[in-house]
């Protein structure tokens, strides 16, 4: 498995369709992450959709192109950054109001829903980053193009 060459992707039809779709899927994922405080969905669902855009590249355009778009190192970084954003938002609640996870930064104090979601939105962005890059990493490990234990020995 680990000795395999990186795959070069599928046929031209698949690659072209993927080329059209990948941007929209990613955009849709980001939209769901950013509007997590207003609509069903949020960080986890949006992160999964965004990850599926990267997975599409990995599958259709081959592992070389996929890793060029979103490398393993970048995925590791964004995973940690996402988790730390989430914990920072939770911890800021402790610092600002004295209660852990207090919703200290409300985006719609007047009662009207807005595009700005305050601490909920910030934590959704963190979760989205975390989920997106973690799922991508899991898939990468299972595809065999970046065996965790082997490659960094």
């Amino acid at each position: 498995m680990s000795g395999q060459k990186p795959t070069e992707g599928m046929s031209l039809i698949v690659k072209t369709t993927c080329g059209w779709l990948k941007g929209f899927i990613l955009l849709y994922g980001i939209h769901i992450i950013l509007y997590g405080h207003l609509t069903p969905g949020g960080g986890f669902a949006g992160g999964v959709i965004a990850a599926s855009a990267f997975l599409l590249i990995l599958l259709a355009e081959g592992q070389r192109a996929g890793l060029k778009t979103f490398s393993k190192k970048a995925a590791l970084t964004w995973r940690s950054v996402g988790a730390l954003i989430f914990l920072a938002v939770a911890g800021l609640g402790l610092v600002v109001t004295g209660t852990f996870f207090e919703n200290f930064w409300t985006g719609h104090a007047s009662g009207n829903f807005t595009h700005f979601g305050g601490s909920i939105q910030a934590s959704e962005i963190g979760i989205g980053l975390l989920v997106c890059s973690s799922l991508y990493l899991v898939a990468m490990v299972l595809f065999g193009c970046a065996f965790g234990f082997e490659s960094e020995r």
Partner: protein
Amino acid sequence: MNNLIPLLVVIPMGVAFAIPLAVRMNPRLGELLSILTALTLLVISLFLPSQEIIYHIGNWPTPDGIDLRVDGLSKLMLLIISGLALVVGIYSVGFIRQFTGHYRYYTLLMLMVTGMNGVVLSGDLFNLYIFVEIATIASYALVAFGGEHEDLEASFKYAVLGGLSSSVILIGIALVYGMTGTLNLTHLASRLDGHVLTPTLQFALALLFCGFGLKSALVPFHTWLPDAYPAAPAPISAILSGITSKAIGLYVLVRLLFNVFGITDDLLLLLRWSGGITMVVGALLALGQWNIKRLFAYSSVSQVGLIVLAFGFGTTAGIVGAIFHLVNHAVFKPLLFLNSGAIEIAAGTRDLRKMHGLRSTIPVTATTHMVGSLSIAGIPPFNGFWSKLIIVVAAVNAGFMGWASLVVLMSIVTLAYQLKVQTAAFFGSNTRSPEVTPSIATGSRSNAEPLFMAVPMIILAIGCGALSLLTLTGLDEPFFVASAAEVLMKGVFTW
């Protein structure tokens, strides 16, 4: 002070995710960060007050939001977890160098600490389940960390059985939620209090008992343990047997039985019998082992059985003895496992038949191992004696003469298999069979027990002696332990 409670979960989790970033700057930051984290957690848990506190996350009131709860028992568990994480972290600096991908190891260790702290603090059943899963997923990966045939096989076995037990626990939780409409432990206890359990709830309780029984390796469900512990790296075996199986199995079991569902005579009978059988089977199987780590693993099974048996007496003295023995087990069993790591490096094998006279090669390990063996067998100056004494006295006072004599008998069996390790590994001449132990001749002392490995072993060996000082406040109420036992004796949570 109360605001520190969530930090006990947040800090290790944050560090777990920060380590992969930090090691890019300096590869040694992983070790440093995890040791500092364990130290911080130890300090925080020392400063926690002993009385009962319920912390509302995000200021949501009790049945609506997520609670964290701290009381005497959780404080004791937190102290053990962070203390052991500290010792294991220091030991790992010396031990884990033989493996690669260090930062992954420390990340997983921190995740395991997160899970255990979360289990101990969690105030509702579902979050408890999530933290149990965090801790166990980290431990599956840590068991497989070596990447050899046996490691992977043991990890797969552990993961399948662990997955089954998690499923069983989740069915139990689903049924409890369906029947009572709440998962908050305090709320649940108040809804169950004074009612006879319906058949569905009895079924749910049985499922929870089996699930957490598997996590703590009670006898019909113990088969994963003697594979998983030897396969893991020595510091991980130490933390797994010392605290993980207790925090995510035994602690939850006891908490649910005593504080949520309410203990009954039938449940006590069940605890006594499952504990007693576990104790006997574990000790007898340990006697026949030649693999040193497998022997210690079976010995863990046996000691867990003793703890469960003592909980099953249902008297205050029995519970004090059980908790005290749990604390002691968290000191001497990690010591034995850490020693086994040094022995393995020095002798180049785990087979007791192939090692002789290691005393001259690894004198520190030989001494600390002697302390650990005497302690686990219950020889007077050390802590194991006091907890076993409390348990035996409790058994006699509660009228269980048979169980009391069985505990004494199993102590003798324990002494027997520890002596087997002593004679095989440390005594005898070094030159008896040089051909099967090539690394003894070549392995110099600095190789087998560097400073980072020797210091934790010495700390734990001193702990074996020092913990007997806890009985200075009286055999009925050892320091710290008494307040933990009081929590369980108070019965179900009131709301």
